[in-house]
């Protein structure tokens, strides 16, 4: 914790004996009385028996929803949405609601630690933070080109600091990787926006006011960009529009939660999205009486119909629906982007929006206020190659678990072993942490300061603030503080910040006069309001309007998907409520039934019932899924809403570390994903084919639904 804070005696509290001590009816003297330890000094904001609420930002996924944490006597109780926050307006998803199970997780790393990684015989030992800072300081003195930082998508303030640090050192800029972003093809989308509209920002789609929406692969109700924002918008689209109930049509090989809620689900061949969009674009332009842009002519409608398996008549109906709609909108993400044609699809969908003229219109497309900075897989691949080649002396890891999230085919594990010094700031003993030399645990998000400024779901310029809601439980320290202390200890005047809070205050200083819904004469007052409101944003909605100067003549080369060989299937993976898998150690997320299958606590492989019947597979039969890159085992779930030539495995399970609730459950599809990438450098796994072998074993899935009641089977 930063010095400034301890001086102010911030949140100096001792928990009053667990309020939930069971005092039983008519029990003897032993259980009758409990010891209570009152505060030594009552904080002025605290009222005994009343909850204290802190505004902060959710870090369970990169969306950056505003939260309000209810605390009582120094304990974080429940997480509620921040009703004023522009991203989520008081609403939250299942992941954000379980944040306190991360804070109070019994498996957290409780102190800085050295692990004998290279030699298993060397016992690990706990360190003091002084030693830890010294280790980091020494590491920072390595040749700058041989230092590498690998960060997650949250928090942004750490990324900003590390960017400044690497710049000051002359080291390569930090990489940011997150499986969620990789699975939804976020860099592809950003790259498409850059190519068409000139700035590398994430688009913001005004779904709430759209009247006919085509979604290509974007599972915006569960994982895409900012699920709470878009779920809220979905509700408004359905019932909040006084003119009509919005219509949603989803193109996906496997029915996601979004497609499940759509009016129409179009199960097209994986990899054929670009063909469909281009063909649709041609017809839409024709129907709207516009000249068909050159780029849309790359494919003939018949060809698109043939490649995608979507009959021409249907294509025509869809084009008519879209072209005649008052407020049409097209979204793209996920399986439509993470494929060789991904960049074409992304550009074509954005251009389709431009075609119907919804750029900057209500129910149309906008650009996010802040630049988004995820790193494409290609750069991670480059890092792996450098590591493999012994060009990296020290690797800093924060907020990402590459051994779990990065496709195993990339060879991260082998490369990691070749890095002499790996320093991991993980809060949990995840797979990567166990293979690191040093663990310098960061605070849990609910104990941290920080900010998120890349808010894909915000309809206005906004920064979202993080603040500690409880005193850190363990001997952990903010990574920013560790880096700043190390930078000072290394003797070079690298960064002009005293500590984390000072750094954040300096970063938000420009916001004082940026037209937010509050302002202040000086930074301390501004700071207190920043913490009070959980961030800063403008009073009125408003985002940059993308401008399309000129469409390129071509969106890129188009490769039609190759049908799987006899006995092979397309393989998909997707993020459900477990997201990138870092939530797998929250027991309530594990206990939460998957929205589509109602399975809990495990992985499954979705197979169309017809296919399963042909293969003689029953529910709960364990099958082995093999791709050229590896194989995994999972129980069969006969899923009625998937293409018969496709298999799907949810992402997020299959941990070999990460504590008692995550370990040894299910399988990790990253083990079977290819390391290939598309033109934007993003992971391209759609089109991967896999074979399926029954193992002869059965492992019943813990499903909440009654198989008999829902599917009529005994």
């Amino acid at each position, binding site marked *: 914790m930063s010095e400034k804070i301890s001086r102010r005696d911030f949140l100096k509290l001792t928990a009053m004996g667990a309020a939930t001590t069971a005092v039983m009816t008519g029990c003897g003297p032993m259980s009758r009385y409990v010891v209570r330890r009152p505060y030594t000094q009552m904080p002025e904001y605290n009222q005994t028996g009343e909850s204290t609420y802190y505004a902060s930002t959710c870090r369970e996924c990169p969306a950056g929803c505003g939260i309000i944490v209810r605390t009582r006597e120094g304990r974080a109780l429940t997480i509620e949405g921040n009703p004023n926050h522009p991203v989520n307006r008081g609403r939250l998803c299942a992941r954000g609601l379980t944040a306190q199970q991360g804070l109070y997780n019994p498996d957290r790393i409780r102190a800085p630690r050295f692990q004998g990684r290279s030699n298993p015989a060397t016992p690990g030992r706990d360190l003091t933070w002084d030693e830890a800072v010294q280790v980091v300081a020494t590491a920072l003195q390595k040749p700058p080109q041989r230092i590498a930082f690998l960060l997650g998508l949250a928090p942004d303030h750490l990324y900003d600091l590390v960017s400044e640090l690497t710049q000051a050192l002359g080291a390569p800029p930090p990489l940011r990787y997150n499986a969620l972003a990789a699975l939804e093809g976020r860099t592809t989308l950003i790259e498409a926006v850059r190519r068409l509209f000139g700035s590398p920002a994430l688009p913001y789609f005004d779904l709430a006011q759209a009247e006919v929406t085509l979604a290509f692969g974007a599972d915006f109700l569960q994982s895409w960009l900012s699920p709470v924002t878009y779920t809220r918008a979905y509700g408004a689209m359905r019932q909040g529009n006084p003119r009509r109930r919005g219509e949603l049509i989803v193109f996906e090989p496997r029915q996601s939660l979004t497609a499940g809620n759509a009016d129409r689900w179009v199960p097209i061949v994986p990899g054929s999205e670009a063909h469909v969009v281009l063909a649709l674009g041609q017809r839409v332009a024709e129907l709207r009486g516009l000249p068909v842009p050159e780029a849309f002519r790359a494919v003939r409608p018949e060809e698109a119909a043939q490649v995608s398996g979507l009959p021409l008549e249907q294509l025509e109906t869809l084009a008519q629906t879209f072209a005649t709609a008052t407020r049409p909108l097209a979204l793209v993400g996920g399986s439509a982007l993470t494929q060789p044609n991904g960049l074409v699809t992304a550009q074509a969908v954005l251009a389709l929006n431009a075609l119907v003229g919804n750029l900057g219109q209500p129910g149309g497309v906008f650009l996010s206020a802040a630049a988004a900075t995820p790193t494409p897989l290609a750069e991670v691949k480059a890092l792996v190659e450098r590591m493999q080649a012994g060009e990296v002396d020290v690797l800093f890891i924060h907020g990402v678990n590459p051994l779990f999230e990065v496709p195993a085919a990339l060879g991260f594990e082998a490369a990691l072993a070749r890095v002499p010094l790996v320093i991991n700031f993980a809060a949990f003993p995840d797979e990567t942490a166990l293979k690191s030399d040093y663990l310098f645990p960061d605070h849990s998000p609910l104990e941290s300061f920080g900010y998120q400024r890349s808010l894909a779901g915000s309809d206005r310029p906004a920064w979202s603030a993080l603040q500690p809601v409880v005193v850190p439980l363990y001997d952990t320290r903010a990574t920013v503080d560790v880096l700043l202390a190390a930078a000072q200890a290394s003797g070079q005047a690298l960064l002009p910040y005293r500590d984390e809070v000072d750094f954040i205050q300096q970063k938000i200083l420009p916001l004082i006069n940026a037209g937010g819904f509050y302002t202040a004469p000086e930074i301390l007052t501004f700071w207190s309001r920043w913490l009070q409101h959980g961030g800063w944003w403008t009073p009125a909605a408003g985002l940059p309007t993308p401008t399309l100067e000129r469409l390129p003549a071509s969106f890129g080369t188009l490769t039609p998907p190759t049908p799987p060989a006899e006995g092979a299937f397309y393989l998909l993976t997707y993020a459900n409520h477990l997201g990138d898998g870092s939530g797998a150690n929250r027991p309530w997320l594990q206990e939460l039934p998957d929205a589509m299958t109602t399975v809990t606590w495990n992985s499954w492989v979705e197979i169309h019932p017809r296919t399963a019947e042909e293969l003689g597979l029953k529910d709960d039969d364990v099958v082995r899924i093999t791709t050229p890159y590896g194989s995994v085992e999972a129980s069969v779930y006969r899923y009625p809403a998937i293409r018969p030539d496709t298999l799907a495995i949810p992402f997020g399970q299959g941990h070999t570390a990460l504590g008692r609730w995550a370990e040894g459950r299910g399988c990790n599809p990253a083990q079977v994903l290819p390391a290939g990438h598309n033109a934007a450098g993003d992971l391209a796994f759609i089109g991967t084919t896999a074979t399926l072998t029954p193992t002869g074993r059965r492992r019943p899935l813990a499903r909440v639904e*009654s198989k008999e*009641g*829902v599917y009529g089977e*005994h």
Partner: protein
Amino acid sequence: MAVEAKPLETAVPLPHAEEDPREHLMFDPRPREVMNRMVMEAMTTTSRRYWAWVIGLALVVLVCLLGAWGNMILTGMGLAGIRRPVFWGLFIVTFVFWIGISHAGTFVSAILRVFKAEFRRPFTRAAELMTTFALAAGALYPLIHLGRVWVFYWLIPYPNARWLWPNFRSPLVWDFLAITTYLLSSTIYLYLPLVPDLAMARDRTTGWRHALYRLLALGWRGTEAEWHRLRRAITIFAFAIIPVMFSVHTIVSWDFAVGVVAGWHSTIFGPYFIIGAILSGVAAVVSILFVLRSTMLHMDYFIRKEHFDALGKLLLVFSMAWAYFFFNDYLLTWYGGEEAARRILTLHATGPAAWVWYLMLICNVVIPWLTLWNRTIRRTPWAMFIITLLINVGMYAERYTIIPLTLGHQRMPFDWGVYTPRPTEISIVIGTFALFLLLYLLASRLIPLVPVWEVQEGQMAHTLRKVGKAEVPSVTELE
């Protein structure tokens, strides 16, 4: 003793035309003292095998019942296989089963007494003992199945510091009251006819037995006035206990029938349960009589083929009555056409656990109907033993069908669930069977199992009279 001669009525079991009337107990009198000694011998003789059984059963009770139950209290009801939505399982099934069995004593003893069925005489006590012990075993279940048995006393209406009373709208409270009433009255009803026999035993024993019987015999001397009062008391109780008996199983059936559960919500459940209870009770009496006859001294004198024969006929009648009510219940539910209820009927007959349903029908209807019409089978004790055991298996299956198999498939198919009994509850069920047998075994050596005075009274009333050359059985009605 006032005796009035009356011609024989057809209601009295007539000796079969071809057989010697002396095969009948009532026409095969022995001197009073001989008979007393026979009963005393039966009661006081214990073999090594007897003690092995007692010790074995006691161990089973200790481990399977008390051990498993204690463990379940400390750990939680989850040790039983019950789950959402099947919140009641084997415990309630066995509860209903025992309460059903407990109808035997009252039926055999009170109803047959009221209707003056003479064949009842030698085994009324055996049946009454069954009633009491089955109730004792059954009454454990409402406790066993409580999630928090340590606060069971909240079910008892008594003024308390919480200002709270039980909810008299709840059938469980009716249950509680009905079962306690029945337990109390059936115990008294067991005890009253026992008094003269206890006095008989008192006069023929020494030591602790003497002390015990002296205490229990309440100073019975056998004066005319005492007999008079005893007879009146027994008659009053015999009449009074019949409605109690009917009420008990009706109320047990209301536990189910008043609910909204599809398949339970049936107005015919009251009589349906009563008939089922009597069927299983009478069947259990036959089973027990067979065991008594083949293990206890002199019992083959008291319990004869004629008794199996008579009870067999009763069983056939009740099996038919049960089938009638079953059909009634089934038809009305099916005809009512409520989707959920119909689905349950289909499921019972075709679901994965349909074998339980067929087992019920085979044991309760097919087997009795195919066998019990036959006199030879009725008069073969071991055959009757097997048939009656099967009838009780069938009745157990009936309760299993009604409870877990119905609960698992209610109105929301998403939440259906299949119940599988788990070791703990099976062990507890076995434990209560052992408890019942243990109590019975102990009681068989503690109290005269045959109501000697009733048999003697009957034998006095039955005589063979010579009419011309033929000997004609006749009976005098005792006042």
